[in-house]
């Protein structure tokens, strides 16, 4: 508790203690979202930079880990918004469903990934955490700072948009 109070007052040593204690947790959360280790490292530093700047807004009686996770999610979201892959999808492969041929299957999976990466960042993050990582709606809602109903809505929207994109590409999930 004392460390949190010192941090809230802007103490650098207290910040270092918290950094060393939570950097691994923050990193693991971010890597789940951005799925790249180097980027996750950069975003971990970015997250703690934001945390340090916002020290005055932190309430020492609060949960530092949850607060850090929310800031990390926002940092990852900002990254995904600017780094979204704008890759044109080829339209010369009609692949209805997953094929048995490994080459075709790989191509279909690549299409699915690219279509997923083109979804709006907010929707993509909710869907990644819920559908790929299997996080609970409650945990996602805390990390995103929105209600569980809003998380479900984003996940459903992601699935709806993904199905539409894939249908347009001849992939019927």
């Amino acid at each position: 508790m004392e460390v949190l109070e010192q941090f809230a007052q802007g103490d650098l040593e207290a910040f270092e203690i918290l950094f060393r204690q939570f950097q691994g947790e923050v990193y693991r959360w971010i890597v789940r979202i951005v799925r790249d280790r180097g980027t996750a490292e950069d975003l971990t530093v970015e997250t703690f930079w934001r945390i340090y700047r916002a020290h005055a807004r932190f309430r020492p009686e609060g949960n530092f880990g949850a607060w850090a996770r929310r800031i990390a999610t926002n940092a990852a979201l900002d990254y995904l918004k600017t780094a979204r892959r704008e890759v044109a999808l080829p339209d010369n492969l009609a692949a209805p469903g997953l094929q048995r041929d490994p080459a075709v299957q790989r191509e279909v999976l690549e299409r699915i990934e690219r279509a997923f990466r083109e979804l709006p960042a907010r929707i993509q993050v909710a869907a990644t955490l819920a559908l790929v990582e299997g996080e609970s709606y409650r945990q996602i809602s805390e990390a995103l700072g929105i209600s569980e109903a809003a998380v479900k809505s984003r996940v459903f929207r992601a699935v709806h948009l993904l199905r539409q994109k894939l249908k347009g590409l001849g992939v019927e999930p």
Partner: protein
Amino acid sequence: MTEANLEKIGELLKKAIPPVADRELKHDLWPQMLGRLAEQPARIPWFDWTLLAVVAIWFFLSPETIPIFFYHL
């Protein structure tokens, strides 16, 4: 949208977006953090201050242009 549909899409996504193999942080990021903390905050160029001063003077002399300015902003 049924739960079965969600699960189906989820399974498909898990195949399409493979998990990051090793999720553990391999080294301490504190040195990078210190570097970031040591960076000087971005300075606002003199031109921006000049522009702000011109706009402020303009608003002072012609307050009726304020709504027009914000309309076009």
